[in-house]
């Protein structure tokens, strides 16, 4: 019997996750898989259900149905905590505490990747900000600080909500390049992104979500083929055209 290929074997699967807020269906029967070492982009416009889906995955919001599955078995909350770390968007945790403390604290409580600390600080240019309280960082600085927290966690899957939100073009490109450097091997990433150009720069594969439903999953080529199969051939080769064709 041959060993499973980690490049295509799912690290984890999202199976039929549904979340309603009263009469509003925020996420409906969302299913897709995340592979070892890849960067998977969850692509969709604002209000498409990306954050809700990620919060359900991260265990900070209760899904109405569905599960996070590994090896065909739904994960318990403890198993999920050990497998993935969810980095929310638009948070400013521990605003009175300096960045250095926040990094050490999260590594202490999650058992983080200490050998990576200096690399992450250098890559995200956080060295000069270590003594500054998190509440006094600019939006872009805080984004990088939170990303550092996420990158230093030990879980094999980092789920980050809108990591490029609030960054200008140059910062977003720079960050995308650095994220790529930290992915692969024992670290996969699921990034929710509403700017399709940002997603195209950093992701290996894509999950397209619109109005709470997953419309497609795969590489750009696979999504192009899927669009063509559905009779919605994209007008061009770019991800934007594919997205428009499939949603």
């Amino acid at each position, binding site marked *: 019997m041959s060993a499973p290929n980690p490049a295509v074997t799912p690290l984890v699967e999202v199976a039929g996750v549904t979340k309603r807020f009263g009469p509003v269906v925020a996420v409906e029967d969302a299913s897709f898989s995340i592979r070892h070492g890849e960067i998977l982009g969850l692509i969709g416009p604002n209000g498409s259900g990306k954050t809700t889906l990620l919060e359900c995955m991260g265990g900070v919001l*209760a899904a109405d149905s569905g599960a996070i599955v590994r090896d065909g078995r739904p994960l318990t*909350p403890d198993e999920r905590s050990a497998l993935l770390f969810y980095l*929310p968007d638009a948070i400013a*945790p521990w605003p009175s505490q300096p960045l250095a*403390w926040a990094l050490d*604290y999260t590594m*202490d*409580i999650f058992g983080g990747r200490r050998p990576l600390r200096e690399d992450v600080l250098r890559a995200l240019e956080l060295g000069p900000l270590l003594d500054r309280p998190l509440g006094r960082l600019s939006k872009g600085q805080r984004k990088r600080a939170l990303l550092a927290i996420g990158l230093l966690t030990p*879980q094999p899957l980092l789920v980050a909500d809108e990591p490029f939100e609030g960054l200008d073009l140059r910062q977003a490109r720079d960050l995308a390049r650095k994220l790529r450097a930290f992915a692969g091997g024992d670290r996969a990433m699921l990034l929710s992104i509403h700017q399709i150009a940002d997603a195209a720069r950093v992701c290996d594969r894509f999950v397209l979500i619109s109005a709470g439903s997953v419309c497609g999953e795969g590489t750009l080529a696979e999504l192009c083929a899927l669009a063509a199969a559905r009779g919605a051939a994209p007008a061009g080769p770019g991800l934007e055209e594919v997205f428009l064709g499939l949603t």
Partner: protein
Amino acid sequence: MASPRGVVWPLIRKEWRELLASRAWWIFLVLMGPLVGVAFISAVRAYGEASGRGGTSAGVGEAFSPLVGIWAPTFSGCEIAAAFLLPFVAIRLVAGDKQSGALKIESQLAAATWVRVAVKAAVLLAGWLIASLAAAAAVLLWAAYGGSIYAPELAAVVLGHLLNAGLTIALACAAAAIAEHPSTAAIITLSITVGTWIVSFIAAIHGGLWERLAAYTPTAMVGQFQHGLVRLDSLLIAVALIAAGLAFAAIWIRIGTAVRRRAWASLALGVAAVALTGALSLIRPSWDLAENRMNSFSRGDEAALRTIAAPLRIRVHLAPEDPRRVDLERRTLSKLRRVLPQLHVEYVSTTSIGLFEQTAAGYGEIEYELNGRSASSRATTPEAVLESIYSLAGIAPSADNDDDFRGHPLAAEPRGAAVVFYVAWPGVALACAALNYRRSR
């Protein structure tokens, strides 16, 4: 991942840093000095004036007990702080995590939510103990004036206020966990605090079940401890309510659990807490730690009363607001309950104030029933009540009454107290706050 046990120490350090970063705690700390100080200074002055007028210690009674004259009023400053300042400190520590988004990160920890809540409560209690050093300063000043300190009764007062602080912390944590916004949590906490006062007020009017409920409000509990009375039922109920409040908070910070499940868990917790407190209220042991034994009859009377094995029924025809009933309850029946486990007291009245019942036949009567024999009397003094009981039981107490407490008069002025509480304490607290602020920047 760090083990659930391995996260406790980092969590303690984090909560401690967050407490020190909280302006609410520093304000609480600064104000604690003047709050305790004004109570202590007034108490020492009043005690000194009364002692001066009394002249010598011969013949003085419980009026010159530091428990009633000094500790109860001084620690009332702590009670005010617990009711009106401590909730904001606790709410800041719990709601801050929700507002900043830190809760979403910490919710992914393998450690159980109750561990996180317990750590918060422990750090808050440590913060309370530091603020309570103001009361410790009052104890030291009193000793410096030459005042008497009877450790057991002082320990009872400290224990009562510690439990009261625990109740406040648990309530505020629960409110902050369920409320979306800190201001809502503050309103909930203060409403419940005021609600307990209303229960006491209604109890004074209507008696009955309200009276039994009011006996377990924080104010009533603190009152018992301030009189040196440690009742096991009150103590255990306070501990149970603290645990229930913290468990409620732990349920509601589990943000990844469906609201309906959290609501059901809360309901189950509420039912269990009510059942537990109901069962604990049946526990009888209590200890009178007051040096003047103000919660007990004389040892001779207690020895005589303990020989009564049969149930004693007392039927009191007095309205809840009748001063005679209040006097009877406080000076006699509360002491009697501690000695006679099989005492059944029934209050009978048709009105709350009794003003228009005075002409009714039987109003004001106290009926006693023991071993099939009965007697009645209108006297409400301890001596008269005991005489009726002894007469029914056919026993005579030992003549050797041992009330050897002669009081501790002290005609002292509160020298230096104003400087300590109004200048030094706030000054040191503000200096520490400034130092902490500079370090964190």
